């Protein structure tokens, strides 16, 4: 399939990325090339694959529900771009 400019913008919006107008053309060209390449998986017969086949050795484990070491406020402050009085500062989100 081929993606058009409008769909690309919608996806970029979902991904929280901006594509400048001069980037749209080259991006679409590359993107559609890649899409056509990965489209070849549609030719594979996957009818025999069941849900049980998908996660054979997942063995996912969960930790016990007990308090463990977490980052301290000072550590968070050391890498946060804007952190004041124990909070991450963001632009105003509630209109008054």
């Amino acid at each position, binding site marked *: 399939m081929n993606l058009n400019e409008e769909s690309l913008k919608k996806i970029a919006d979902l991904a929280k990325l901006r594509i400048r107008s001069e980037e749209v053309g080259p991006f679409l060209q590359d993107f559609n090339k890649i899409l056509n390449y990965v489209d070849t*998986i549609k030719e594979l017969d996957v009818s025999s694959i069941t849900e049980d086949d998908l996660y054979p050795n997942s063995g996912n484990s969960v930790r016990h529900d007990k308090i463990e070491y977490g980052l301290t406020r000072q550590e968070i402050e050391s890498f946060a771009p804007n952190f004041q009085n124990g909070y991450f500062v963001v632009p105003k989100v509630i209109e008054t």
Partner: protein
Amino acid sequence: MKTLWKLDYSQVKSGLNSGEFTPTELAESLWERIESVDPKIQAFLSYEKEFVLKAASESTERRKNGKPLSEFDGIPIGIKDNICVANMLTTCASRILENYRSPFNATVVERLLEKGFVLFPRTNMDEFAMGSSTENSAYQVTTNPFDTTRIPGGSSGGSAAAVAASMVPVALGSDTGGSIRQPASLCGIYGLKPTYGTVSRYGLVAYASSLDQIGPLSKDLQGVVDVYSVISGKDPRDASSRNISSYDPSKQQSLKIQGLKLGVMKMSSEISPEVAKAYSEVLEKLKAEGAELIELDFSKLGSAIPIYYIIATAECSSNLSRFDGIRFGSRKDLAGKLEDLYVASRSEGFGPEVKRRILLGTFSLSAGYYDAYYGRAQKARVLIRKEYEGYFSKVDLVLQPTSPTTAFKIGEKTSDPIQMYKADILTTSVNLAGVPAISLPVGKDSQGLPIGLQVTGPELGEGKIFSFVQALSSRIDPKVDLPDTIR
């Protein structure tokens, strides 16, 4: 003492343990080496010399007092820039993390420190491990020590080039679709992608969680085996970590080439003639030693790259959503709305390849396309896994070239993403199946560029791979000497 940097991993280890030289002398020699050749190679992203020399001097002190933490105390190791080291920069070669210093150590780093390894600063990589040439780093292009007009492979190109150019004896990389094996092959060294789940991913900045695995790169097999034995084993902090103990090299059994069943591939047009020739020569030697070569049908693996790109990009779009400019990383401060801050921080922080992959992943996970792309790719991945199960019901190990060509020129494939993706054509299926594979040097082409052999084993078959590589290494001359310009 001036030339300690020339030593291979095994020589470094034995020299430290016999007291021939101290960790400080070794670290200083390697540092001089870095200062002299890294301006050409650009394998390292940051130079935190004091950090390294302090760790080396602590190790020297421990050894002087007869209290080394282990037989590895004082061995220098390079760490790829996507593996968190406390208080060191961890940028993933991305602008979005340019000032990020991790407050904690990755589990692999913790395990290395417990044994006394000396951590060298961060090796360059493709941004967020996305690439096959290390040209996608936001900071610098690493060059191949065998020819500095060529790429070292990627995404662990910094780690591979640092080891190949004798700036560290061993390094850690991460492998999502071939990112340890392909650069190891192109730089003439050994590189292991372990069985999925045997090495903790805690503290590895995730690209594609179901495929990523940390592994070692070294100039000799010993470095790979030792580091794997230190970093492997169950980690309760990684939910996908398997319930196994650390790899124990003392239990490794020797292996006879005679009678071994080896799965091999028929050469195709995608493999360059010189790579094909080197591969055939190795097979001839193995055959002469009594190995049984069984030609396998690899045609089903042809779909591995498209499957890989759908799964990897879907996981990357999800994993990289945490980079929003709010909690860590760089932030574009705007007076506008919260949404604008996200978009501006991400758009300016991520490079073009990362954006391309996030967009492809967002697309394949979006309503209306999920079943046709991501859902289908997950099922198709099972076909690949079953294909490998089929191989290992017939053969002990699978042998292929690691990379279809030797190192290509810088810039040669940057304009065509598909051609770049195809650089990993022989390695990606291994990640989809979750099985282990190593790349080892087996020769060079007419231009002196290294050629690698990929040895793939069944799940948890690392011991078998190591035994085989050991047996094979004594029958071929796997060392590829550096050109005089770097020597």
